């Protein structure tokens, strides 16, 4: 992948992000923050590649710390987002008249 094609991907993804995230209602902004946190855990892919192809101790140690850090984000991020979203409920049809 060359620089410019990378930039195309970056710019287009930025546009997509902008359009999509603008539609997320205020109500869901906290879950949004924690979901993007979870997605940023994709650094895991880079960290694993480093460790899995390294034969220097430095790279192995740094990469392992990076794996731990990103795994925390992935596991924690998705989990807590789902925990939050499970709490969002619509009024049950009859609730108001009870």
């Amino acid at each position, binding site marked *: *992948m060359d*620089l410019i094609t*990378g930039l195309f*991907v970056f710019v287009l*993804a930025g546009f*997509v*992000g902008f359009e*999509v*995230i603008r*539609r*997320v209602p*205020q109500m869901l*902004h*906290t879950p*949004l*923050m*924690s979901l*993007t*946190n979870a*997605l*940023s*855990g*994709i*650094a*895991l*892919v880079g*960290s*694993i*590649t*480093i*460790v*899995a*192809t*390294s034969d*220097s101790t*430095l790279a*192995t140690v*740094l*990469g*392992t*710390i*990076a*794996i*731990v*850090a990103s*795994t*925390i*984000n*992935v*596991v*924690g*991020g998705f*989990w807590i987002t*789902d925990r939050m*979203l499970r*709490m*969002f*409920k*619509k*009024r049950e049809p009859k609730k108001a008249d009870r």
Partner: protein
Amino acid sequence: MTAGVQLAYLIAAILFVLSLKWLSAPTTARRGVLAGEIGMAIAVLSTIFAIWPPANLGWILAALLMGTAIGAPMAIFMPMTAMPQRIALSHAFGALAAALVGTSEYYVAVTEGHHLSAFTMGALGFEVLLGFLTFTGSLMAFGKLQGVLPQRPITYRGQNAVNFTLMGVAIVALVWLIIDPTQTLLFPVLIVGGLLFGVLLIIPIGGADMPTVISLLNSYAGLAGAAMGFVLGNPLLIVAGALDGASGFILSVIMCRAMNRSFTNVLFGAFGQVTASSGGDEDDDRIVRSASADEAAMVLEAARKVIIAPGYGMAVAQAQHKVRELADMLTKNGTEVLFAIHPVAGRMPGHMNVLLAEADVPYDQLKEMDEVNPEFAQADVALVIGANDVTNPAARTDESSPIYGMPVLDVDKAGTVMVIKRSMSPGFAGIDNPLYYNENTMMLFGDAKQFVADIVGELSRSAAGV
């Protein structure tokens, strides 16, 4: 990289986009989480299998386990009120990962004698600098939000000069490295520069502005991730980084707009520094009408329409469940109950929504500011629970107020305004609230949870005919 794993990355990227797309409605939001999880699983598994058998498999598995062992309990036991801190912390982790990956890429390339092109070195330096900066910056934000560090902005003479010098040094080091990547001694300058800069950037920003800062750091973490994608030639990382960056940026813009402040003002305004000085003492003959729980209960009982405006105090007091109970009780009594949610009520965007959702308040009962503001005039009671700045009428009228122009909830238009808070002390912006001296305002002093519980008690007693 083989075509197979690349294709897996493409699918993961599509799932990530869909994940955010589905987050645009509460009914599809959980599907969004699922899409994100599947995308992540596809990406990680295909990465491992593509380099099978991987070196250091033990290290990898141990690290994955350890990350899970830390992340899962954090997700399960973290109280909802601590979300801002948690998010700050996870930016720190994300940025650290990016920075460490960049660092080891650099040293491996240099020791193995690979040539780093100007483009790769530039992206790598950007990744490391931004990663370490975001790491310490997010830790500082965490500290301020958690109360471990002083909330007060710390400023000193020549602060900007110091910061700019440091930035200059880091940039010079980076440019030099781009020209000659073998200058290994310069790399630590980049690392230390990033780490220090993150600290120095956050020091002069008050605790009140941390949510905006977190969002901005979110955006930086995203950019660092995208830079990692450029270094590794991995478009999936670029996509995820760009999505992350866009999200952080949009949220911080929304917050700034909701507070009627500019980015520059948030980052360099040292907001909240002159806090106590302007409050309180100007007009000590103004009268405050305080009331007790049973007086409040009587007024509420007679009301036909009540609008509840919750704020940060409700979160601190963990009063959301009691508030739900109160709302249910009033509803049963035939009163119409709405919740008015200000965009920056609490300590992060959407904070109140999550707390009230936790307490089982249905989300269609929560109204956004623009929708609910015209309704206050028809409300008999506006019940302000632990909110302060977001109800301050001075934002509408007093041009000298630091929050002048910030849109606020028009609670003062209601027949009676009840304000539950512990004292007359100001909120996050550190300014006086003239609402508390209005004729139709009843101040209900006490802890939010306790006071609401008292009102609920009074109401149920009177319902039982005692």
